[in-house]
Each structure stands twice: as structure tokens, then as C-alpha cells.
């Protein structure tokens, strides 16, 4: 069963088994504006919790996307290279960035649930 957790930096991670799919939230894509480029990590790279996993660029800003939890990159969404607008159109679906094999599931504990994140955003 998939469950999704959120960070204060507006990343989400959707957990299925020991794999987590990482992307940015709808709120984040709205704040960034039109996404023009996404820089993704190499498959096989190990990333610690909170370390830079990807970079997302709009015309006038570049933002780092941090790993919500530590893990090894097992897949990246290479479709974003040719179609960065997908991040705007469907951030939680086709606009995902990368998949991590989660090293330590306990790192998920500190992350927000969907309800908590919605409250967090409502108060920004």
C-alpha cells in the first residue's frame, strides 16, 4: 500500500515497499512557475537524508530538491529532460523526479503526513 510523506521543503516521497518515489508538491510547482529544466542524479548514486538529489529550474530561479530520506537512486524520470513542463502539469503523477531504495525506513518518522502538510502550506 502506497503512503506519501512530505518535507518542509515541499518534496514528497511515496513509499511502496522499500522504494520511495520523490518529487515536488503542487504548491512547490506553483511557487516556482514554469519549470524549464530538471537536473537528475545518476542511477546508482547513494544520497543521504536531506542531501541534494536534483535541481529544478524555472526561468528565473533554480532550486535544489533534497532527498526526504536516505537511499540509493534506482530510477530517474528521464522523460522530464524533454518535457520539463510535466512537473507543472502533473507533479505527483508523471512529474516525479526519482526513485530511491530507502536505506532506513525510520527516517520517514519525522516527515509530515498529507494532512499535516496541507495544514503547513495553509499557514505559509
Amino acid at each position: 500500500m502506497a503512503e506519501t510523506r512530505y518535507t518542509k521543503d515541499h518534496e514528497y516521497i511515496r513509499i511502496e515497499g522499500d522504494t520511495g518515489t520523490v518529487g515536488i508538491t503542487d504548491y512547490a510547482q506553483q511557487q516556482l512557475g514554469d519549470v524549464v529544466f530538471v537536473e537528475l542524479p545518476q542511477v546508482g548514486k547513494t544520497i543521504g537524508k536531506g542531501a541534494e538529489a536534483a535541481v529544478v529550474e524555472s526561468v528565473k530561479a533554480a532550486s535544489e530538491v533534497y532527498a526526504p530520506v536516505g537511499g540509493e537512486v534506482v530510477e530517474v524520470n528521464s522523460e522530464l529532460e524533454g518535457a520539463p513542463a510535466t512537473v507543472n502539469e502533473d507533479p505527483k503523477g508523471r512529474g516525479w523526479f526519482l526513485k530511491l531504495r530507502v536505506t532506513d525506513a525510520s527516517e520517514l518518522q519525522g516527515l509530515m503526513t498529507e494532512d499535516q502538510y496541507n495544514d503547513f502550506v495553509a499557514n505559509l
Partner: protein
Amino acid sequence: MLNRQGRPTGTGEAATSGAGTFTGNRALLQEEALLFETGRLDATGVDIDEPAPFVSRLGGLERKTPLALPGLSEPEAMRHYVRLSQKNYGIDTGLFPLGSCTMKHNPRLNEKMARLPGIGDIHPLQPVSTVQGALALMEMLGHWLTTLTGMAAVALSPKAGAHGELCGMMAIKAAIAARGEAAQRTVVVVPDSAHGTNPATAALIGFTVRAVPAREDGTVDPEAVKAVLGPDVAAIMLTNPNTCGLFERDVVAIADAVHAAGAYFYCDGANFNAIVDKARPGDLGVDAMHINLHKTFSTPHGGGGPGAGPVVLSDRLAAFAPVPFVRRSGDGLALVEVDGDGEAAQSFGRMTAFHGQMGMFVRAMSYMLSHGSDGLRQASEDAVLNANYVRAGLADLMSQPFGDKPCMHEALFDDTWLKGTGVTTLDFAKAMIDEGYHPMTVYFPLVAHGAMLVEPTESESKASLDLFVATLRDLALAVKAGDTERFTAAPRLAPRRRLDETKAARSPVLRWTPPEPIRDAAE
């Protein structure tokens, strides 16, 4: 981390408004095709005779790849570039209040001086005996710059402000290495309000950047600096007057704290124009500072360069200055061009081929000689006076992030007063274009939300400022009256309306390529 530096980059809410003419031209505003669309491969605007027969010595490396570059005759070229020029806004067109960029008048005497054969037509590697006048001019410029800043030495060769920053930070890195602390001091402290070049420069040569926030009033708190200083800090990079147009009033305390921690004080001199002949950075504890000759000393911005960024150095850093430099030798002048021994034993090396931007040196010298010390002080005072006059004229309508108090050479507003109006800083800037003004700097500095940074410079007359203030007041009142269309659809009268930057970035077209049929025919 969500980066909120962004601003709208679409084309705005514009109803289509074609010129309605057959040509697309609007009287004096002529549409102009790319030269690749009008030029021909066998056309040329330069008459050159074929050489007499000779034996080629190219060793089989003759060009086989077609150039495919069309040419234009001279009349066509004149028209092409004159028409392009007419799509540009320059200082000579009107008030150009671009904060932090100092768009002051560019005296034409300077252009004439740069074109004297003894300046414009001399080679950097001629025997030094044949360029004594050029070296004298460099020496004179160095003397003026060190005198105005109260510093020990100057490195003239950096090619622009950011290159000057690099020079200053390399001198600091070399000085730290000479103390045997290279491995230990790896951090550079940079305030949030700094130009982007500061952290970029520090990172370029391997430093880690540590940010220090500005306090409520827009300046840096010495206590906040002390809190981030430590044995790992190499330097602070501080802009003064800062990017909010404020003089860092605690600069001496900051300098003392930095020095006490064993670090150096790099001052970004982008805004030196506000204090020339009013205060000397050397007296304030600065160890290195670049001077943008294209800002403070009026060399033309030229659509984005060339600039020049000489760096003045304190006596603690002078020995590490890059080569080349000019020195007295007997009754003449010599150039020290190679580092490693003699006077250049501790020099950190070379930053560029040759000796720097001579064409800019002579323009700056012409400007300084014209003003003299009395004129330079008057220019600084007038720049500050003009900025405050604009600020005072708008203070009741537009919001200032750090309160209603005097500024230096530029006045900073934010977008608090635009909240809920449906008009953004960008919209406001674009509406200024329709009124015949170049917009101020927008969305910089980042410490002010929706920043608008206005620098009128000393080159504006009172009448010009009065009209400018009246125009901005009219626009501000229109915002408040809800006339959003005037802003969100602007500019309507410029050679182009808002451009689609998203399209440009998503699928970059960075060069012209021939349309398919022509390409086929050429093959």
C-alpha cells in the same frame, strides 16, 4: 529549499495589437530581419583584392567546411545596425535609473581620447620604450585610484567588476596561504544582500560561503558578523554602500572584528560612486576593493561590457597583487610581467593576457581629470542628492522596506504597497517603459520583497527628476485606482511586447539556422 527569487516570465495579459501596416513598420520604428535573411553569400562590404599568386603554407589544413556566412554591402550594413540601435534604450535616450548599475552620462571626450592613435593603435607587446606614455597613463590612473581610496596598491588588469572580485579574493587566498593557514581558513562570510557575484567568486576558488543576515534596518550587524567569525574564516565580502543603497554605518566595527579574527575585509566597490572624495575605504579597514570603472568613472556600459575592474589593496595584501604592474625604472617606466621573483616574488600570478583594459583606463582618466577632486566630490554629492530627491518625492505612495530615512546614491522600494492590487513589481516596471523610461532594477536586492532599486545618478537635471517623479506618482495612483490593465498589458508601445522567456528556456534556439528548403538547395 524552495527558492522564491522567481518572477513572472510569461508574456502577460496582452490583447494582440499588430501595427496594422503592410510592412509591420510603425513610421520611424522599422522591423529588421536577421542579417542571415538579407545577406548573400557572395556579397561583401569590404573591398579586398586577391593576393598575387603564392605558394600556400597551410600544410593541408585549408578550410573544407563551408563557412556559410552571408555578407552585407556598406549601405545595407549601416541600415541594419542603425535600425537595430533604434530598438535600444540608452542613457542618451532618457533617464536610466537602473539601481546598482550607475547609468551616468558617458562623456564623448572620453571616446575621443580612447581613439587617439597613441592609445587605440598601440600593441601590448611593443617594446616598452615605445609605450612610455601608455605606462604613464596607467601609473597616473593607479595614483588617482589609490589616493581616492586611501589604499596602498592597485592591480589594474582585472577586466570587469566580477574579475576584480576574483583578483581581490585570490590576493586574500594567497596571503592566507603565505601565513600557512590555507587548509584552515576556507570560509568566506557573505551577507544575504550581496551581489550574486560575491558567493560565485568565493566558490570559484574553493571557498565555502557562510551567509550572514541583514538586520531590520537593512545593514549588517557587527554582532551577527562576530557570531559567524572563527578560525576557519578567510574573509568577509561586504558591499559598501550596500545593495539597499545604505552606508554600512558599523563598517569600522565589522572591519575590526574581521581583523581580530585573523580574516580579511573584501569590499565590493560597486557603489563607490556614492562616496568618492567623501570617505576613503582604506580608512574604514578595507583590505581589497574592486572599482567598476564603468560605473563610478563613466566608461560606457556598451550593452553589457566591456567593463574594467581595477582592485585597490591594503599594504597587507599589496605583495600578492597579480602581474603585470607598472614600476619606475631609472628615468622611465617598466612593466613587471612575470611573477615568481623580484618585486613579484609573492604575486599570485596572472589573471589575463596583456595588461588590462587600456581603452577603459583612458576613458576613466579623462573623466577624472575633467572632474578633478572638486568635481568628483560634487558628483558624489549630486548622486546622493538626486536619489534622495526621488525618494522624498515618492515616499508617501510607495513603500520603503527599511523605513523612511535618507539613502545614499540609490533609493530602495519594495512591493508592500502593491499587495492586493493585482499589479506586480514587474508590471509596474513594464508600464514605465510605455512612459518612456528604462525601468529601475527590479527583484534585486533579494532582501526586499519585489524590490525596486532606483539610481538616478548625478547626470539628471532637476527638471528631469521632477518629470520622473511626477510620472511614477501618476503610475502609482493608477495602481491604487485599480487601472491594472495599464500595467499587466504593458509595454504596449515598445518595439516588442513582453517576451516569452519560458519558451526560450524550454527549447533554446541559440543561433539562426537556414529554413529547410534553402538548406537543401545549398547541398
